[in-house]
């Protein structure tokens, strides 16, 4: 799409003291709000669902990490093919990325689950194969949809990152006699990943936020558990607020983990 993805890096506000006067006031207001919520809203259902909620969080994280890791493994060749691949390969990679990025994930998920899934069922060969016990479950479709989506979005990011590695650094590697593979492994890939890291953080958070969609095809994640709470207790706000809080915490942890990773390689304005 765009030639150069300006890295919209997230710049945290200046780490000032947490205890400036206006912050204390804001924190007091926040504490008051939380207190009101705890006091005036109904939370008696919480203990009953505690165990299932923890299970749900586990499922959500499992879904996130498995799809992000496998998706990234696909993203690297997708990005590379677009930058240096032979024409047909570059076009194929580009087409795939456009296709996935151009349609809603929800739709892809349904297409896979209700469309492809019921096609499978029409073939007795598949129904009797050893794969069927997996194919009749929902999570493989959720996994596939999320993984492909991550691969496509990251493929685009990696394309920009590969293309953005300063040409001179690659030339230097070539000038010192590095072969193509060594050059890729030692210089091009690590440098591209380094450049892509800030964007990757954002994309992984987006991926986390996409996981609840799998609940619509009966995969049980934390969102599905909360939906169940809502349907069984008929509470409108409480379960949703808890859900928002859970996701906020997960996001916070993710961002922190990536920060640690980023800090290992100082990178000034690259």
């Amino acid at each position, binding site marked *: 799409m765009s030639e150069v993805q300006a890295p919209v890096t997230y710049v945290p506000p200046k780490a000032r003291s947490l205890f400036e006067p206006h912050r204390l006031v804001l924190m007091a207001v926040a504490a008051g709000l939380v207190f009101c919520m705890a006091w005036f809203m109904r939370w008696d259902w919480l203990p009953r669902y505690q165990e299932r909620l923890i299970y749900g969080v586990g499922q959500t994280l499992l879904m996130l990490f498995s799809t992000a890791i496998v998706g990234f493994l696909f993203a690297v060749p997708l990005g590379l093919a677009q930058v240096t691949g032979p024409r047909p390969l570059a076009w194929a990679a580009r087409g795939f990325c456009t296709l996935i990025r151009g349609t809603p994930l929800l739709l892809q998920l349904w297409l896979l689950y209700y469309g492809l899934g019921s096609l499978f069922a029409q073939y007795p060969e598949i129904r009797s194969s050893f794969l069927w016990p997996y194919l009749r479950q929902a999570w493989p479709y959720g996994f596939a949809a999320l993984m492909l989506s991550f691969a496509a979005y990251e493929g685009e990011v990696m394309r920009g990152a590969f293309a953005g590695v300063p040409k001179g650094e690659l030339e*230097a590697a070539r*000038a*010192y006699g590095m072969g193509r593979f060594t050059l890729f492994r030692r210089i091009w890939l690590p440098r591209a990943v380094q450049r892509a890291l800030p964007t990757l953080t954002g994309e992984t958070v987006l991926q986390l936020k996409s996981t609840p969609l799998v609940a619509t095809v009966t995969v049980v994640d934390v969102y599905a558990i909360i939906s169940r709470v809502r349907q069984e207790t008929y509470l409108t706000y409480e379960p949703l607020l808890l859900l928002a809080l859970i996701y906020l915490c997960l996001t916070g942890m993710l961002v922190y983990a990536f920060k640690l990773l980023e800090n290992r390689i100082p*990178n000034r304005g690259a």
Partner: protein
Amino acid sequence: MADTAQAIEVKGLFKRFGPLEVLKGVSLTANQGDVIALIGGSGSGKSTFLRCINLLELPTAGQVTIHGETIAMKKDGNGGLMPSNRRQVQRIRTKLGMVFQSFNLWQHMTVMQNVIEVPVHVLGQPRDQAIEVAEALLRRVGLYEKRDAYPAFMSGGQQQRAAIARALAIQPLVMLFDEPTSALDPELVGEVLTVIGDLAREKRTMILVTHEMKFARQVANHVVFLHGGLIEEQGSPEAIFEDPQSERLKKFISSVH
């Protein structure tokens, strides 16, 4: 590789960028231990010539021989040349140390990692040994304290010295310098001069592109003036600077003095 006296021999080098013919048949021979200074106006093709020697730029025509080994080339489809043996090119390149005009340090590595990268991962030296050599080199260019810094956090002069150390670490037979002092203040220029002087004394062959005539004069034993894609004039520093023959060179020299 035969230890001939001829370290580099370039014959009839042509290079064209689209409609622009930058080099129009440049031939140059450097004997072992020679320090050749390449001077010329901006855009006269000095960097391009250096880059053609190690095939970072593919010449349109011509032949390059390093220590007796001629780089095998074949015609590509578009009227240019391409190397016929990739491995040979890689091997020869490890004998050529290049210091780029814009340094081109690997930004994701510290200075030390930059210096040992090629010895360890291309030449297959043991890591410990490479580090030992690197430390000595970094001391020599005055960067020992900065060995764990990343390039982005160093001044231009420091980056330039790191790039020199990186090139020296592969113990090249021939060093190619592209404006090695452009980012340095007068005092640091002196230091780099010393390093290059030492290298010359070790009988290492060098070709250096420079805008600083004083520097060229002090360090080179042969000066080549590029103009209009050709070698307009060449000779000893004294001959070139004190007694230029061609009009162009006279004008160039006078504008400098």
